[in-house]
């Protein structure tokens, strides 16, 4: 017997390669074995390859490698704003906040960032007394220079500035002043630009208390842990209070850490980050890559696309404002937050022009699962696309990865395999008829077909062409298996699944450690699963629990533990 899913372990449903020769689907038992109280098999999840029962407790130092990362464009934009928060810098001097893609330390990017910082620094330094409370131009100039270096050095490197670095910057400042004829403000601007080009500023640089290549795994400093917290929750640098907590050792105590997490979670930036995470989980952040046929969907345009994305973000934001909002509530909600375009798409009357809370037609809609944004992203160019929608549930929401089609499979459906005027269900039937296709497609299509009531942009339909829609489907290899008729029933089932919470928590953990599927992390992710199974957990609880995960206090130097 082989238990295919341990919680958190990414299940690669074994249907790759020589498909017909091996029937993986029968090879399944106890899909939620990893949850607390769940019986477990050998634990041999395909994604992790770990064998044997997990230890009751995990060692926090048994972790995968967190690769060195640059800030994302958004983190960079926010960090720059935070650094100069006390100065009078016109808002348009800052670069745009940007997306969640990592900066590439190419010459071009570094050059542009230097231009950004030069512009912001010049604006901030135009009134040093107002900003720093001292002057670079009178009797206290040297002390002011030192204050600027220490204060901005700490902010921009996100840790206390070492004495030798302070000395070096002081020398640079003095040389620019005396040898090159720079004004105090010009020299100070160069100091700030230099700090902004350091690896401490540009990277999530975690060196530990005594940087050395000797140990493969090391504990992070309190300042580094503070940065992990704030970048994860705020996508920005720690604020003064968080730095203070780090400095005073409060992050080393359970209560102090919990208090800081609660405080950070109370900020709007944390809400927006959780909204981002939910969007990334459902894939709606990819909406702007999505193209639709203008012939089939003449109403599809950038405005509708934006309205769809707004709906989903507003809905999740609204949900998070409710006490103890759960992951399941994303799928069982009977309302949404939308404006007239989306209301029209739902067929719901709407007065006014501003987005507001509206009731969903509950017979037709199942919370976020049937949001037009979700159906559009996981829909075809000119039709519904049961495979994409099956993958939405299987791969994204339940964390069971289904392999991409093997190279030697022509994924085009042969037009000879169905009659003209066939429904999507009839066209896709060939996937389940042909044994080579069925091995994988029975993992996706029977789930995806439950979404047949929604067209490629998420409009509800009773008929496809002349034929009534058949939206029957089936969930298999989950903890909520069984037949369903339509996405509302599907959502009801999924809302009961323990795998759903577990998958969300896994995605959060992976984001927090910046790695996925590392075998060393299986124990920590399974521990999260046991905690989840102990009672109903809200989304905020899950986020807080992930952030207190002991393994997040450590870093492994390298994937292979090698040293240069």
């Amino acid at each position: 017997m082989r238990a295919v899913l341990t919680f958190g372990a990414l299940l690669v449903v074994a249907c790759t390669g020589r498909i017909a020769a091996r029937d993986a689907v029968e090879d399944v038992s106890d899909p939620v074995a990893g949850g607390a109280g769940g019986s477990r098999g050998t634990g041999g999840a395909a994604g992790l390859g770990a064998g044997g029962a997990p230890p009751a407790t995990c060692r926090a130092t048994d972790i995968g490698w967190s690769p060195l990362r640059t800030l994302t464009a958004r983190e960079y934009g926010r960090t720059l704003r935070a650094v100069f928060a006390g100065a009078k810098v016109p808002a348009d001097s800052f670069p745009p906040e940007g997306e969640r893609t990592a900066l590439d330390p190419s010459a071009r990017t570094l050059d542009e960032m230097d231009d950004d910082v030069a512009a912001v620094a010049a604006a901030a330094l135009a009134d040093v007394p107002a900003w720093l409370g001292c002057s670079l131009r009178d009797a206290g100039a040297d002390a002011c220079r030192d204050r600027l270096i220490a204060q901005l050095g700490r902010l921009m490197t996100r840790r206390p500035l070492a004495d030798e670095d302070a000395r070096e910057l002081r020398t640079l400042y003095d040389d620019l002043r005396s040898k090159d004829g720079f004004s105090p403000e010009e020299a100070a601007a160069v100091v700030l630009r230099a700090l902004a080009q350091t690896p401490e500023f540009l990277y999530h640089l975690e060196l530990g208390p005594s940087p050395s290549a000797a140990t493969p795994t090391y504990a992070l400093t309190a300042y580094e842990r503070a940065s992990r917290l704030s970048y994860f929750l705020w996508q920005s640098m720690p604020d003064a209070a968080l730095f203070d907590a780090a400095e005073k050792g409060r992050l080393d105590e359970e209560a102090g850490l919990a208090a800081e997490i609660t405080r950070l979670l109370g900020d709007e930036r944390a809400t927006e980050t959780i909204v981002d995470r939910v969007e990334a989980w459902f894939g709606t952040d990819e909406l702007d890559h999505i193209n639709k046929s203008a012939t089939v969907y003449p109403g599809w345009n950038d405005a509708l696309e934006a309205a769809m994305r707004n709906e989903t973000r507003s809905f999740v934001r609204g949900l998070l404002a409710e006490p103890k909002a759960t992951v399941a509530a994303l799928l069982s909600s009977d309302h949404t937050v939308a404006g007239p375009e989306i209301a029209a798409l739902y067929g719901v009357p709407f007065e006014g022009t501003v987005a507001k809370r509206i009731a969903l037609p509950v017979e037709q809609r199942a919370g976020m699962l049937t949001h037009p944004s979700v159906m559009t992203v996981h829909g075809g160019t000119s039709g519904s696309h049961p495979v994409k929608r099956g993958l939405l549930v299987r791969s994204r929401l339940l964390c069971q990865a289904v392999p991409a089609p093997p190279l030697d499979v022509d994924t085009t459906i042969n037009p000879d395999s169905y009659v003209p005027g066939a429904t999507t269900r009839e066209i896709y039937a060939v996937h389940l008829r042909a044994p080579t296709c069925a091995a994988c497609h029975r993992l996706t299509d029977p789930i995806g077909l439950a979404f047949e009531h929604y067209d490629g942009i998420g409009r509800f339909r009773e008929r496809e062409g002349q034929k009534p829609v058949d939206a029957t489907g089936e969930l298999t290899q989950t903890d909520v298996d069984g037949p369903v008729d339509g996405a509302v029933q599907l959502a009801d089932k999924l809302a009961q699944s323990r795998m759903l919470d577990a998958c969300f928590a896994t995605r959060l953990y992976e984001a927090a450690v910046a790695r996925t599927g590392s075998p060393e992390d299986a124990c920590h992710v399974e521990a999260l699963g046991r905690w989840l199974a102990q009672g109903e957990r809200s989304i905020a609880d899950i986020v807080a629990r992930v952030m207190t995960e002991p393994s997040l206090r450590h870093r492994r130097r390298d994937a292979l533990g090698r040293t240069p």
Partner: protein
Amino acid sequence: MTISTPSLISRRTMLGVLGASAATPLVGEAPARAATSHPKRLIVLYTQEGVIPSLILGDLTPGPLTRLAPAMSALTPFQKKLTLVGGLAMFSCINQPWEGEPFTSAHNGGVHLFTGSPCLGPAKHPKLGYLEPAAAGGPSVDQWVAQKLPRETPHSSLLFGVSRGDIGFGPGGRIAFSGRGHVGFDPEMDPRKAFDRLFGMRDAATAARRTRARKSVLDFARRRIERHRASLGAEDGAKLDQHLQSLRELELELAHEGSCAASWEAVDGNAAALDVPRKTSNVIALTKLALSCDLTRVVSIQLGTPGGYGMNMRHVLLDGKGIDHDEHEVSHAGDVDRRPEKQLACTRWKASVFAELLAALESVKEGNGTLLDNTLVVWSSQMATPWDHAMAPLTFILAGGCGGAVKTGQFVAYGEPRLLKARSTDARRVDDTAYAAHNRLLLTVCHAMGLSDTTVFGSERYSMGGVLPGLLA
């Protein structure tokens, strides 16, 4: 090249008005070079969704080019300067074992296309859970050539991209890599920014102070990176090495600043066009300017992304009409109707872009010939046929004489003729003798560019046989 003194106009004022400046060499004609010989240049062009052999080659047979396939008709004026290379296969990708299965998806082919190296990894796609390459296994040919050519230009290479959105996660969305372990360069997607960076000028009075400030900033950053380098692991360290390389690039740029000028209007001649064709034209104009001005000798152009969602054909025009579909969807099963026509339209558009690029290069006179004659343009995609992700038979379209190094005006095919335009339905059944490894084409590119010391490109196994016969003059 001659370096003209920048006129005393601020960088920002300069932009857009420079067309009339007499002090600077106007690009479009080559700046005078001391030597009579012109340098060789390399352009690699990536397009997404395959170079479909049946469309690119039509019913041509190997030999001198007397006509082109209908999809390629836009290239007819350049027939004598083209070299079609058929019958290749991307074995480094096809045969890369990956956790017991060949790791052959369209998502890693882009990493192989110009590197010919098995990629590193796997990394799991953060959202979809697919295995994706974690990094390239070696340098891409453009970057290798850029690294090996004598460094005489301010930029070792330039990378441009045109895509509707961003180009996606990780190495799988990129085509240019500095070496083993590199996650790929982000191409510059904003032509205006690229213009400012290449041609933006500053007045001489502040240039010295600016350089001093700039050098201080770079020095401080470099010392700190070097300090941390030792305490990080090998793979993290490699990232910092890349960063150090960027700092060296910037220092070189500082030394060459202000050596060339151009006007944005000259670059943005098609301002009324839709987004994608406009940016594509911008990139072509920037390429022409940068090469003719000797700002670099290597340019990489990425149209779309190996991930497939970079290009919406609704944003381009063909015969005055938008093409109403998403090429990626056409490639897959999304639209089962009218696929051949749609794929023909997409290929025709790509051929028209290629023709626009060649025309731009041809318009610059260099000695008795043109910039195109001194350039090698290499166009391909990570797939032959996108619907099955087949990586054989792969076609490369070369153009330009590369300073006389490449024999043009011919169609050269390798491997078994019967497989030339066959749609490979099982690339894993492709044996090594049926096609020539695309590594050998990449190796041939190195030799055309004068790097005859390069004897292996990417995978050693697939470099066997060396330079492809019949291509070099």
